[in-house]
C-alpha cells in the first residue's frame, strides 16, 4: 500500500480500537463468586465438625474432596465454564477451578484413548500449576532449611 503504518504505529492503533473488559466490574464479580466458593467450603467444614463430629483437620480434607467433586460434576454438565465466564478469577483460582482444568481435558481427549488421550493430555492446563507449584515449594524448602541451619529462622 502507498501509506503503511509502522509496526509500532499499528500496535498503538490496535490498542486504541480494541474494546476492553471492565476491570472493576470483573473484580467485583470475582470477589463474590470466589467468596461464594469459600463460603460453601466453610459451610461444609462446619457441617462436618458439628453434625458428623469430625476433627477440624479431617473436616478440611472433606471440604477439598467435596468441592472437587462438585466442580467435576458441574464440568460434566458443562456448567462450570459458565460460572468462570461470569466470575473470572473467582471461578479460576479456587480448587474448583483447578478441578475444572483437569476434568475438562479428560472429557475432551477421551476420544483419543485412555493412554494418548486422557493419560497424556489430562494435565495440559493444570500441569504447569503442578510443576511450578512443586518447584517453588522445593525452593522455599531449601530457604527454610538454610534459614534454620544458620539460625535465621527459629
Amino acid at each position, binding site marked *: 500500500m502507498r501509506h503503511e503504518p509502522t509496526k509500532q504505529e*499499528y500496535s498503538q492503533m490496535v490498542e486504541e480500537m480494541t*474494546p476492553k473488559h471492565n476491570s472493576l466490574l470483573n473484580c467485583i464479580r470475582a470477589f463474590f463468586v470466589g467468596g461464594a466458593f469459600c463460603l460453601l467450603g466453610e459451610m461444609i467444614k462446619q457441617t462436618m465438625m458439628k453434625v458428623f463430629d469430625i476433627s477440624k483437620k479431617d473436616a478440611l480434607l472433606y471440604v477439598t474432596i467435596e468441592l472437587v467433586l462438585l466442580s467435576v460434576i458441574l464440568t460434566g454438565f458443562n456448567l462450570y*465454564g459458565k460460572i468462570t465466564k461470569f466470575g473470572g478469577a473467582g471461578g479460576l483460582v479456587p480448587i474448583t477451578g483447578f478441578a475444572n482444568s483437569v476434568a*475438562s481435558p479428560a472429557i*475432551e481427549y477421551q476420544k483419543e484413548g485412555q493412554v494418548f488421550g486422557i493419560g497424556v493430555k489430562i494435565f495440559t492446563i493444570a500441569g504447569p500449576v503442578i510443576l511450578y507449584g512443586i518447584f517453588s515449594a522445593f525452593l522455599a524448602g531449601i530457604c527454610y532449611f538454610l534459614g534454620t541451619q544458620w539460625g535465621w529462622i527459629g
Partner: protein
Amino acid sequence: MSQMRGKSSIVFEKAPYLLGWSSIVAQKEGEGPLGDLFDEVIEDPFFGEETWEMAEGHFMRQAAMLAIKKAGLAKEEIRYAFAGDLLEQNTATSYGLKELEIPLFGLFGACSTAGESLSLASMMVAAGYATHALATASSHIGSAEKQFRFPLEYGNQRPQSATWTVTGSGAFIVSREKGPVKITGITTGKIVDYGMKDPMNMGACMAPAAAQVIYQHFQDYGKEPKDYDAIYTGDLGEVGKDILIRLLKENGYDISEVHGDCGLEIYENETQDTHSGGSGCACSAVVLASMLMRRLISGYWKKILFVPTGALMSKTSFNEGESVCGIAHAVLLEREEA
C-alpha cells in the same frame, strides 16, 4: 488480450459461473440472523459422528453433495475439488471428502480458504482444465477450540475482541455452464505481518492483509469503492472492520459505504454472546452461499468483491513467540444478466 491485470489480479476472458452452492450450519448459526437463509441446519453438533474432527468432515461432505445436487450434476462430473479447513493436516477435508472420490487439491489458507478455493477453481475452469470444479471450506467450534485453545468444558473468560468459530461448511460448483452469478476476476493476497501477537484479536491480525488485497484490487483494476455494490470481508469482526476502513482511508479509498463483514452478519453478537463476531473457514463460505448469493441473484446487487480473511498461525508458532500473520483473497462476483 492478457488475462493478467496489474500486479496480482486476473480478469477472466471467459468468466466461470457459479452453478450450484450450499450452506450447512449447526444450531447456533441456525439461530442467528441468517438462520432462514441456510440450506440445512444440523442440530447435532457431532452430526452423527464420534469426534469433532469427523463431524466437521461430515459437514463438508454434506455441503459438497448438496452443491453438486443443486447444480444438477453427479459427483462423477466434478473434475477437481479445492478444499480446506483449519485443522492440522487438513483432517476434516481428507476424511470428509474421501468418499466422494473427486480428484482433490487440499488447501490451507486459514479462514481465507473459501476465497483461495474459489480463486483456484475459477482459474482451473477458466483455463479449460475442468468443466465443473468444487470449491469448499469448513470449520467447527469443537475441533477449532480443541486444536487452538482449550477444551470446551474448561472455564475461562474470552476477551471482547475474540471471535466465535462458525460450525458448518459452504460449497460451490464453479462451472463453464451458465449460472446466475459469474466470477469475473480475482486478486490474490500476500502474507502481511504487522507483528500482532494476540490470537484473541484475530481481526487486528487480519485487517492489514484485507486492506492490502483490496488496495491492490483497486490499483490493478483501476476502480474505486463506488464501483462496487458491496465489499464483503470474511471474519474481521467489530475490531478488524474499523481498522480495515481506517487503513484504506489513509490510502485514499473510503469503503465505509460499501463494506460488510461476514463475521458480523452470521450472529447477533449481543444476544448470542459471540463478542466480536463469527470466524472460521465456514464463516465467509456459508454467508456467501446464503445471504450474498441471494442478494446477487435477486438483483439487489450486481457486483461484489468477496474477500475472505485468514490468520496464519499454529499453536506451536504462538508458543514460540512468533507473530500472527494475515492473508486475504479477493474474488469478484457479478450477476449474470439474463
